[in-house]
């Protein structure tokens, strides 16, 4: 997507799997869209129909990282090893999305690089970079998911206190980064401090409120 100055602001992206070793004009082509405003194709792509599948348990809370991929027996693709990958990204000039893209994507992008959490009870004064961090409880409360922030691929497990501190360097790798090649030391760090579950939600609320102030 481009803004009013015709500058690219976001990419709309698709993944294609094309078999290159056969020439059968009768082969069916499937176009797969995932529904839901704002929801991407990752669910059907990586859960149902793509060649690789994310392993998650059924009817229970997802265990902590590392997350595993496996060959997908349910894929609609035929041909196994002969498949080829093709990706394309095109920039669309959708002016009506430019406003929120300018404001929000930048913040999310920052978040991806400025990870997060704190220790003890101190919340930093300088939390401009983390205005978009929301935490929500899932399931039995033993698992927290970054909500406003799901693009960043963080699920924090057994987290009881979420705090944000502007601590430079020395970050502990308490969360798994989406991009495993990420090696830079974050400007802020996240640490997980277990506490009694009963104190959890009140603390979360107040911390989140303070962080967002």
């Amino acid at each position, binding site marked *: 997507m481009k803004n009013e100055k015709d500058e690219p602001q976001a990419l709309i992206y698709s993944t294609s799997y094309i078999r290159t070793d056969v020439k059968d004009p009768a082969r069916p082509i499937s176009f797969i869209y995932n529904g839901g405003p704002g929801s991407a194709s990752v669910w059907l792509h*990586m*859960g149902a129909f793509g060649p690789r599948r994310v392993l998650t348990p059924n009817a229970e809370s997802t265990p902590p990282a590392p997350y595993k991929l496996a060959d997908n027996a349910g894929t609609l693709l035929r041909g196994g090893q002969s498949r080829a990958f093709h990706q394309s990204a095109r920039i669309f000039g959708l002016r009506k999305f430019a406003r929120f893209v300018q404001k929000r994507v930048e913040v999310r992008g920052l978040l991806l690089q400025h990870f997060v959490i704190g220790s003890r009870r101190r919340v930093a004064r300088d939390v401009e970079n983390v205005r978009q961090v929301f935490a929500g409880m899932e399931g039995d409360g033993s698992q927290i998911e970054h909500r406003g922030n799901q693009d960043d691929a963080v699920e924090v497990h057994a987290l009881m206190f979420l705090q944000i501190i502007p601590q430079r360097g020395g970050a502990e790798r308490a969360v798994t980064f989406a991009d495993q090649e990420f090696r830079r030391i974050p400007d802020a760090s996240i640490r997980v401090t277990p506490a009694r579950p009963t104190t959890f939600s009140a603390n979360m609320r107040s911390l989140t409120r303070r962080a967002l102030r």
Partner: protein
Amino acid sequence: MTGAFTAAFNGYVRSDLKFGQDKTYHAISEGVGSNWDWKHQAGRGRGFFPGSPNVEGDLIQAMLANPHLKVEVENGLYDMATPFFATEYTMEHLGLPEKLQKNIRLQYYDAGHMMYLREDDLAKLKSNIGAFIESASKP
């Protein structure tokens, strides 16, 4: 499950597909969701009244325009977000001629709308959709 999918995809797209090193993938974008334009103009009209976002009319129009179009809906029996019964009701109240109504088929799974998270249903989904594609692509 969101974190597992997003993390795994981000690794997969960069390591296996070699794409998007410097890009952010929005698995669920609240920016898009909260700014979604819910207005929907059914059919080809250009009226100013947006109406409600009901896309049944689009399905009916497509099925009438192309009587060979086959439709299959995969339903999770335990889905609280898009419950199967509402789908049944909708599909049975499109007002299609009987001949076209036969082009709609409903399938059911012992899971929610992400039935593929359950391995038994993943296999069933593949089998059903494979059969659907075979039957729908016959001349």
